[in-house]
């Protein structure tokens, strides 16, 4: 089954993404506390793409597709902003974040703890972030 939503790159659209993901997980009878985590991971990636890759430019779009079978749920988030090089990403330590009073850096930490697989690829001018969660 495939579900899809397209939003413009504004942080104000994040609740729409969460509501959409929540309704798909609800249809698939994912337990509430587990669904909350999955919604969070998708929200974090979308927030990063809106803010960093697309600089909150509302003329840019972000496209989220959710596909699932009995074993996995796969989220694909497509955008045309600046590509993110995941190979160069180094997770900061909590000590580093605390001592520098950083507010950023926690989002991807959460996504890595929630999702079973994270991939960032580029295809035909699109950046695609794929998140896979085993059910």
């Amino acid at each position, binding site marked *: 089954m495939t579900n899809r939503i397209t939003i413009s790159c504004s942080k104000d659209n994040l609740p729409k993404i969460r509501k959409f993901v929540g309704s798909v997980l609800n249809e698939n009878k994912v337990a509430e506390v587990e669904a909350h985590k999955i919604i969070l991971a998708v929200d974090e990636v979308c927030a990063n793409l809106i803010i960093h890759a697309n600089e909150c430019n509302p003329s840019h779009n972000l496209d989220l597709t959710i596909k699932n079978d009995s074993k996995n749920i796969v989220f694909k988030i497509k955008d045309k902003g600046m590509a993110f090089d995941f190979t160069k990403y180094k997770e900061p330590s909590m000590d580093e974040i605390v001592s520098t009073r950083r507010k950023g850096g*926690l989002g991807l930490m959460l996504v890595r703890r929630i999702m079973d697989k994270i991939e960032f690829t580029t295809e035909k001018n699109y950046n695609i972030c794929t998140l896979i969660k085993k059910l």
Partner: protein
Amino acid sequence: MVDIKTTKENDICKIVAVGEVDASSSIELDNAMKSAFETEKKIIVDLSGLEYISSAGLGVFVSHLEDIRSGINLVLFGLSPSVLQVFELLGLPQLIQIASTEEEALNKLN
């Protein structure tokens, strides 16, 4: 969307957050926390009406951990299981005091 209210009784500052704290609304929590940390020594945060928190909201609390280490007393309370698990994913209950109820939060302050 989040509604933030700050009150003060005796020497205790109480911040109440109701709604959702995400990348868009975390600025409101940040402003309330910054103001409280400028003048207060004992702060409790009621999160019983908080339905959702993303890393942007967690970041607000984490950015004040150095202040907590330097003597400001902060206790969060009333977190739903869904919200608490987000704190647990990053091990934050080891760094920030979390209580179940307001009474327990007040006891932790003293």
